């Protein structure tokens, strides 16, 4: 087994473990921390299903952001929706036989990469051009965009410029999943692309990317507006009553 294959195999095991473990830890923390007071941003839905719909609109359309700022919405939506399609397209490397719907979206996935890169470029430009956004940006905010942009560009490079042996890449990842390791093609662009992805996975649970699980737990968005109808009491607050 080539040395680099072993390095990358181990890298992806570690990255996956950190991603899953880290996210599980944070999600558990969010779920276990009580929300002692009803603080939905109103007007808010008065039923559970209403809340589910509100949350769906936030996830699927970035509703609040749309109200807020059309430029950020446009770039953010291009980036996320593009990334979503690109990720879905990547499922073909992990499934055998490839699921039909994954096959069907392959052509869209190609354009999605451009949308993703364009969105990232727009978001990044704002960090330089808008004085307010420049003020709130730390180095890590730039690096995060650089990382995602580099992933997108190396990925597109393989589509349009250097081409790699994707059959072998698929064999490598299926091999990882079934503990039957296969050699990884030694293409520099591919190696770079994969290293960056592993880095993203490792960073995910210790960075602002926690916004993805966070939004589900945001009390201003996920609470039902029914404080008069139903008494809402956190365990630690209930203890005060017995004093």
């Amino acid at each position: 087994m080539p040395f680099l294959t072993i390095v990358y195999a181990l890298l992806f095991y570690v990255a996956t473990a950190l991603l899953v473990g880290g996210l599980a830890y944070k999600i558990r923390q969010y779920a276990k921390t009580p929300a002692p007071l009803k603080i939905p941003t109103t007007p808010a839905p008065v039923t559970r299903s209403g809340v589910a719909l509100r949350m769906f609109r936030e996830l699927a359309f970035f509703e609040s952001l749309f109200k807020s700022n059309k430029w950020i919405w446009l770039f953010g939506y291009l980036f996320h929706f593009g990334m979503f399609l690109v990720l879905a397209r990547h499922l073909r490397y992990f499934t055998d036989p490839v699921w039909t719907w994954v096959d069907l979206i392959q052509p869209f996935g190609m354009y999605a990469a451009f949308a993703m890169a364009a969105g990232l470029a727009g978001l990044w430009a704002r960090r330089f051009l808008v004085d307010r956004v420049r003020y709130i940006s730390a180095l890590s905010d730039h690096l995060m965009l650089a990382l995602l942009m580099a992933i997108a560009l190396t990925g597109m490079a393989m589509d349009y410029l250097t081409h790699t042996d994707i059959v072998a890449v698929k064999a490598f990842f299926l091999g990882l999943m079934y503990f039957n390791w296969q050699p990884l093609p030694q293409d520099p662009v591919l190696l770079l692309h994969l290293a960056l992805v592993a880095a993203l996975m490792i960073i995910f649970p210790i960075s602002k990317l926690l916004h993805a699980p966070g939004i589900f737990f945001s009390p201003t968005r996920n609470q039902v507006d029914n404080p008069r109808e139903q008494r809402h009491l956190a365990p630690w607050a209930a203890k005060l009553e017995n004093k």
Partner: protein
Amino acid sequence: MADFETPEIKEYPVIPHLQEGVMAHSKPFVAKEEFQEQLGFPGELVDNWEQVALDKMQELTGKYRGFQVFLDSCVKCGACTDKCHYYLGTTDPKNMPVARQDLLRKVYRRNFTFAGKYFPKLVGAVDLTKEVLDDWYSYFHQCSQCRRCSVYCPYGIDTAEISMAAREIMDCVGVGQKYCNEIIGKVYKIGNNLGLPEPALVDTLEGLEEEVEEDTGVKVRFPVDEKGADVLVVTPSADFFAEPHVDGLIGYAKVFHEAGISWTLSSHASEAANFGMFIGSYENMRKVSMRIREAALDLGVKRIIMGECGHAWRVAYSFLNTLAGPFDFLDPNYPVPQHILEFTHDLIQRGALTLDKSANDDMIMTYHDSCNVARASRMGSRPGGQFTIPRDVIRASCNHFFDMPQETIHEATYCCGGGGGLLTDDLMELRVKGALPRMEALKQVVEEHGVTHMAAICAICKSQFSKVLPYYGFTMDSIVSVHQLVSNAIVLGNKQ
């Protein structure tokens, strides 16, 4: 008038360029030892305050899911940066909601996250130093906890929650704010924010009875501590004598009179305000709330109705059941508590009041949505009732009503500039500058529709506007209570 310049109202509202540090000098007076200790906080900065503050921060992240999730989730997208009236009015970048949060978040990161512990420079994490604490004291007292930023953040990050937590941490290390903490102390000692003792309250109300009888020839009652009344009314103490608040109180009394429903105020709970919320203290907020429960039990009422007040309505609507419930001893046919506007609105709907709109013909009205009512509570059974019910009541009471521009009302409403425990003279510059977006919107309807008066349903908004309107060239009496309009229009003795 003062040693600062009132911002200029531009033809169109513009998002200003930032000017660093221009409001760093703005700080409210610090609470004295005796007022700190009354609330269970240390009297002055404790020796190991850094550790105490960090312990408190950790405790709060474990107690409040919102605080924890908000600290982790911000992506610095910038969507909130132009949403705060204090940023728009002062141009100080630390008044951008995300930058305000970051004052606390950078300390959270430094001490409680992997990235901040090992790569502080990379993520902008810093240690808690005296300079940072000073910045907290300054800028967490430049947030009126109005939640406008939360509406526009893609994750609903609510800077109000962060500033409440920050104030709680500061209280716990011994640097509390004079205005809020003194007032909470007065509520414990005397029963209301203004420190108005029971005999004075009784006197004041008797005076009002006489005044209304002189005006109208009808004996409209203002009862206090009457056992067995149907309804306990809890209203901000400013309603007892400040202008234009008191005209609102007269309105409530006339409505009860016409409805033929017995009601009473309570000298024990002679205050609807609950500044415990502003300082983020669950315990103090609960203690202040319990007075309402005690009064309701003691007087044996069937319902609780809250007077016109913004944050008080938030605490009452959203938190009272949690803090002082359950209210199973009250009449289950009515929500607990109700807003006085829900009550009046319902009577109007049922045709139980006769209103002569022409009595208000000398005014062309607009309406200011108070932030806590708009974004942190509801009225009626449908979402958004907090916008329609007050407007319905205004329209039923007067002939001329025009709304301010869409992006400045309803959930997008701008704070008056004095909410969240900032309604104090030592913050006058901030209050004047923070009122700018509202003043711009008002000016627009003044010019387009000849609006002469603005109605509000919040004691803080009313006091704040009386004070700042003149800075922008309006008269101080152009702010009125919604129930003042009802009071003017109501025809007494019609429905017996």
